[in-house]
């Protein structure tokens, strides 16, 4: 009896240790060049349109229940007239060593063979554990089953689920688009080409600050950008091993050269 329990516990632990894939098929990665991002917010709306994110209204927004999967954070330093403003788009970092995956009691979030942090809506029971564990605050909870005023629902993307009350959701790197690309690649009996998959935010980014691709391919544009000396990852000291790589913004330190 004890042996069986021990074996179960070991299996359990095995599964709980992130990085249970020795090598990913693809390693989907996003690179964000903060020197190009101008904070315009096109990605935010593109994401909303692509991913059936509900509009929750002013009152729910006040309670912090907006369902945006990507947001642009803005930080302000200094006092008038020496103001420095910095923008950063933040979406699910698809950590390879994700705190949320360790927490979920029903395995609704786990890591898959493409290096993606998976959220399975039909398995989620809404314990909120993942959102509590996430250091990036990118998980969003459906407090209600939100409605689309007709005929706004005609716009809903049939490639993915419309979430209901009690379910946690988050950025998926537009898995439905990855799937379309995989489908096409399989038809043509080849691997996915660099630049073939573009999540909605990457697709629309006017400045071209967002780039998406496979880090396993050393020649892909993300691999090249990942070797940029400006590279860093968000809250790297937490050892979450994120799949989103940021490139530092070029900015003079301290007060701007105001006089002279």
């Amino acid at each position, binding site marked *: 009896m004890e042996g069986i329990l021990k074996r179960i516990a070991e299996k359990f632990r095995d599964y709980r240790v992130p990085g249970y894939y020795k090598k990913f098929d693809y390693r989907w990665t996003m690179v964000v*060049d*903060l020197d*190009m991002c*101008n*904070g*315009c*917010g*096109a990605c*935010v*709306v*593109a994401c*909303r*349109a692509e991913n059936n994110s509900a*509009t929750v*209204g*002013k009152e729910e*927004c006040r309670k912090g229940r*907006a369902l945006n999967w990507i*947001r642009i*954070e*803005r*930080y*302000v330093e200094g*006092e*008038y*007239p020496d*103001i420095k*403003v*910095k*923008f*950063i788009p933040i979406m699910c970092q698809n950590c390879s060593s994700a705190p949320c995956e360790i927490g979920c009691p029903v395995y609704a979030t786990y890591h898959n063979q493409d290096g993606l942090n998976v959220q399975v809506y039909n398995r989620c029971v809404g314990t909120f554990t993942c959102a509590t564990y996430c250091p990036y605050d990118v998980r969003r909870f459906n407090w209600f089953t939100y409605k689309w*005023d007709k*005929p*706004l*629902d*005609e*716009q809903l*993307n*049939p490639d993915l689920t419309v979430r209901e009350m009690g379910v946690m959701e988050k950025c998926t790197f537009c898995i439905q688009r990855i799937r379309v690309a995989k489908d096409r690649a399989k038809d043509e009996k080849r691997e996915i080409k660099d630049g073939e998959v573009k999540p909605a935010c990457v697709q*629309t*980014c*006017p*400045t*071209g600050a967002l780039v998406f691709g496979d880090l396993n391919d050393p020649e892909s544009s993300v691999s*090249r*950008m990942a*070797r940029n000396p*400006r590279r860093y990852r*968000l*809250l790297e000291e937490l050892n979450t091993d994120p799949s989103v790589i940021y490139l530092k*913004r*070029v*900015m*003079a*330190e301290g007060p*701007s*050269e*105001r*006089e*002279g």
Partner: protein
Amino acid sequence: MKRRDFLKYLGIGAGGLGAGFVLGKASNPPGAKLIPYLIPPEDVIPGVANWYAGVCTQCNAGCGTIVRVMEGRAKKIEGNPLHPVSRGKLCARGQASLQALYNPDRIKGPMRRISKGGDFTGISWEEGLEILSGNLAKLDKDAPGLYMLTPPLRGHLNSLVNGFMAAFGSPDYFQYELFQHRNLIAANRLSASLSEIPYYDIENTKFLLSFGADFSSTWLSPVNMSYGYGRMRQGGQGKRGRLVSVEPRMSLTGANADEWVPARPGTEGILALSMAYEIVSQGYYRGADGGAWKSVLARYRPAEAAKITDVGEERIKRIAREFAETRPSLAIGGECVASYENGVSGLVAVNVLNHVAGNMGIKGGVVPNSEGFVEGARRPDLKTDRISTLLKSASEGRVKALIVYNTNPLFTAPKALDAGGSLSKIPFIVSLSSFMDSTTAAADLILPSHTSLEDWGDDFAEPAVGTPVYTMNQPAVSPVFDTKGAGDILLAAARGAGGRVADRLKWNTFEAYLRESWQGLYKRNRAMASSAPTFDEFWSRTLQNGGWWQEAEEPRKRAVYVSASGAGPHLPQSPSRFEGDEKEYPFYLVLYPHAGHFDGRGANLPWLQETPDPMTSVVWGGWIEINPKTAGGLGVKEGDMVTVDSPSGRVQLPVYLYPGIRPDTVAMPIGQGHTEYGRYAKGRGSNPLDMVPAKEDGISGEIALNSTRVKITTSDMSGEMVKMEGSTKELGREIVQTVSPEEFEKMPKDAV
């Protein structure tokens, strides 16, 4: 077991069984239907998306789009990757334009007003067109008093409208929109003889000096310019470009700048000229007429300008020298400069600065565009075609009938112009708009038109990209409601009018008109004709690509000259005037278009309402930006409601403490405060245009938004500002990491 217990168990068992059965039935409802097509549409595979090319109409940039359609429904709108303006990208407003198509508050069919001041009642199209024809037939043949008001159209809808008006013998076709760049057009005509707005080549410039041009969110051609901005910073050729922004209120573009120069409102033109003086006097100017320029610019010496503009003399000189030394550099003048009472002269000053630094007509500078306007179309005459002229005619009773299409002066014109009062004097107003905006609500007859996703159309981007860009728009989906295309409505009205009018507008559909007009273009334009052997092939390729443009890699170079004698008379003589006494009204008021709602047209789209403003993160409402120091002096804190009074009007708004604004200035976004316009927009926030005086630029007729001072008092009105931001400080978490420019220069470039 007792009999009683047995019965209990039996009962519970039966109940459980029944409940399980019922729940099972309910959770798996039978009878989901599988509805086949009656006749399948061509080229449609259910479950596989089709893409249709079109043009975005959320602003005047003219971005080419592609619409993803599945089973007849539009799912997503994206930039057309072939299109030279949008380059496959789209801004937040463009992305959200799908919600205009499927908006629950669209006008669902023709309506007429039962009696003056009464309610609307639904009618049929036959009835609606009959009312329209009947009223048009009543007009006097010689002086019809028929007026037309549209946004500044550039495609063949413009030429059709113009032809329609000509057929009725009426010259009164007005084009109005709040941000229609009349000042920019006027300034380029006056100072550089450019009939088209030029292409500002941000992509290839190395030093961008913006005078209040917020191209990151709304100005001129945001998608194209943001693309250029990204390439200017990284990923382009050579050195990283620098951005300096001059504006009293830090816009999104200012927030991205390396240096922000908060000059005193209304003095930006003088600042530009003082830089031009420094450039000329330091010998950077290469032209032969250096002496003439020096004497024209002598009034704007940095030492004097420093006092007027509140920017240090040394700073002016340093930026001027950097502007002249960095090759190529580019100065742009945007909404903020253009919105003063002397907007044109401010923009002429920016052109002068570009000229003396040698940026005119070069790559990475100001690249002229060739005339790309449609034959038979009407460009607004800046002198006569003004909204104020139209309103004056209306109030004097000269307007017998007004056809208004997709423009909303009752919201976007300053309240002081009293558009409502003037329009009420018009006996017959027809609105062809898709939404119940304030102007449509004042109409007598509503013949709702398609949105651009349901209609045919075309657009000729201005500014183009140095080469002309002709964009085609085809219907992506069949009409959602009982609406018709605006062109089709006019053609039907012309048929109904009969006689001369019907003869001159003989086309059955706007599509036929469009095709025929393009056939003419194809015949006249040699480059078009050589791109395809037959027109049919050209047409199908144009529909497929979303338009026609030349594959030229390098924009055509053309000499552009700004002469001292030509520009001299149009330079700003003094800072722009602001209404109101400085003692009573201590603050300058600066208005700017909301990043999502633009001139108010985006306020009915829930996606845009819920997208946080990039600078303040406020959603679902308006606000007033006040410097924290000023707020401390006024005794207000963030979120407090204040009353803002100008000599012309009053609004009440919650306070947002904004460090990026001059302490003597307050700012507000335009876009909220609709009294109509559907459930998402109506009754939300206030419209700051209520405070704007009835002033316009003398030369161009552009409404002077920034021409008043205001005072602020605390208000006991309740209201709530919802913002999405948490802390505006990083609190040592190093979230946005930076490297200094010096450090960046040292970084190995080949590693990238």
